[in-house]
């Protein structure tokens, strides 16, 4: 048993401060345990969001020693506890209180993505090789750590023209779906702002589900956008023979579940 100091952000969207709490820690503890112990022993009003303590609900995202991570999956023995351990809320979203942030923007931005649209009278037979790629994307637990770390949102606050890596992953899961006939390339290029992404891969580095966000979702989508808008030779042939891709599929106009 040893003592560790945690430097925890206390405050709200108007500002706040880092407060030091020193607690006794046990072997096998994770940062979320430490936060709960601080709540129990020293600061009952310390706000944090959590649910499963198993890295599956995606609620407990925070920044531990400057690194975006799930508090419930960050063991203390992976940190240097000889110095105070800093715990801050996710920087990209407005703080509600202490470690809890308001991630509502993600659900608003999600509405830009047209829902799953099968062709009329679809034959619902799919083969495993058709859905392998999409299944990787379905592992997402919506922790929004990738949105938090993405410099386009974090540093440049581009929340109007860019949907962020999580929603690019969701778009990829629809665009690559073997039974979907909708075309989301125009959205990706324009209001989705895929061109803002400079594939610097921070989203992939922080994803707790180890989804290959850039290699398997964003870059393949960028290549599809190139097919449609930036490849002069393909464009020439498309004008000659007409686009294979459907540009206007029937849409319910609302962001339904994929």
């Amino acid at each position, binding site marked *: 048993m040893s003592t560790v100091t945690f430097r925890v952000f206390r405050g709200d969207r108007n500002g706040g401060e880092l407060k030091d709490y020193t607690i006794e820690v046990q072997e096998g503890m994770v940062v979320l345990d430490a936060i709960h112990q601080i709540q129990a022993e020293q600061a009952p009003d310390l706000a944090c969001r959590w649910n499963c303590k198993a890295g599956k609900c995606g609620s407990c995202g925070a*920044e531990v020693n400057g690194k975006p991570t799930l508090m419930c999956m960050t063991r203390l023995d992976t940190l240097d506890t000889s110095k105070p351990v800093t715990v801050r809320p996710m920087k990209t979203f407005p703080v509600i209180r202490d470690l809890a942030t308001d991630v509502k923007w993600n659900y608003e931005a999600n509405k830009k993505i047209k829902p799953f649209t099968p062709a009329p009278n679809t034959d619902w037979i799919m083969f495993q*090789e058709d859905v392998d790629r999409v299944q990787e994307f379905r592992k997402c637990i919506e922790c929004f750590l990738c949105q938090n770390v993405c410099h386009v949102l974090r540093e440049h606050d581009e929340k109007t023209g860019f949907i962020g890596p999580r929603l690019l992953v969701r778009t990829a899961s629809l665009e690559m779906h073997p039974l979907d006939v909708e075309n989301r390339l125009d959205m990706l290029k324009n209001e989705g702002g895929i061109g803002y992404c400079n594939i610097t*891969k*921070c989203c992939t580095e922080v994803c707790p589900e180890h989804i290959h966000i850039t290699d398997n979702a964003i870059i393949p989508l960028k*290549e599809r956008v190139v097919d449609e808008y*930036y490849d002069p030779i393909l464009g020439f042939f498309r004008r000659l023979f007409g686009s294979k891709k459907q540009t206007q599929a029937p849409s319910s106009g609302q962001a339904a579940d994929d």
Partner: protein
Amino acid sequence: MSTKPVTGIESRKTDRQDAWWIEPLFTVLSLGLFGLYAFWVALNRQHYEYGPYLSPFYSIPLPGVHAKDLDWLAISPAFLVLWIPLGFRATCYYYRKAYYRAFFWDPPACAVPELRKAYKGERAFPFVLNNLHRYFWYLSVPVVAFLWYDAIKAFFFEDGFGIGVGSLIMLGNVILLSYYTFSCHAWRHLAGGCLNCMSKHKTRYTLWQRISRINESHGFWGVVSMLSVWFTDVYIRLCSMGTITDIRLF
């Protein structure tokens, strides 16, 4: 219990305690030194050949054209080939990550603040041109094919077939360059990634799966193939200058 106010200055620095700066530093040093070396080699116009060995910097991707036949050119014949690998690497998804982080600090490392506020990403000139990566891939395939031709030629000495250390270095170099070229993201897309229904395209699906496997290490192939190009040139140059002697193994 002590308190520490959150100041504006604090938000401009990172709480990260690890050595996040090592990766951008490595990129700046390796790309910077390689760039300077490549430029010097191109201007130098000598010692690019030794016996059957030819430096990759002077491998002209035109049938029947050898760099030494182009001595009359005002510019170095190396520039006739270098713009292709330069364009391929400059628009490559791995190198884009590396130089955006290391040279532009967009961002220097994850969750580390940037230096500048204005940012357009790949939506505007010049970086919008990175969307033309696939064209550089098309051009790189013949360059690699000619390097294979050079590597095979490196096994045929004046006295017939043989194996020298230089032959193996040239072979190793072209293998690494092939891994790099054929693990490209644009090629992965063209080969099968653009399809939605893989079950209807079995051959392309198999090809896509193979490319995907080596694509996972695309950055690794990018770095080692760059080092091997440098090393191959250094070896041939030193042999040609008489500084070292090529060893014939067979």
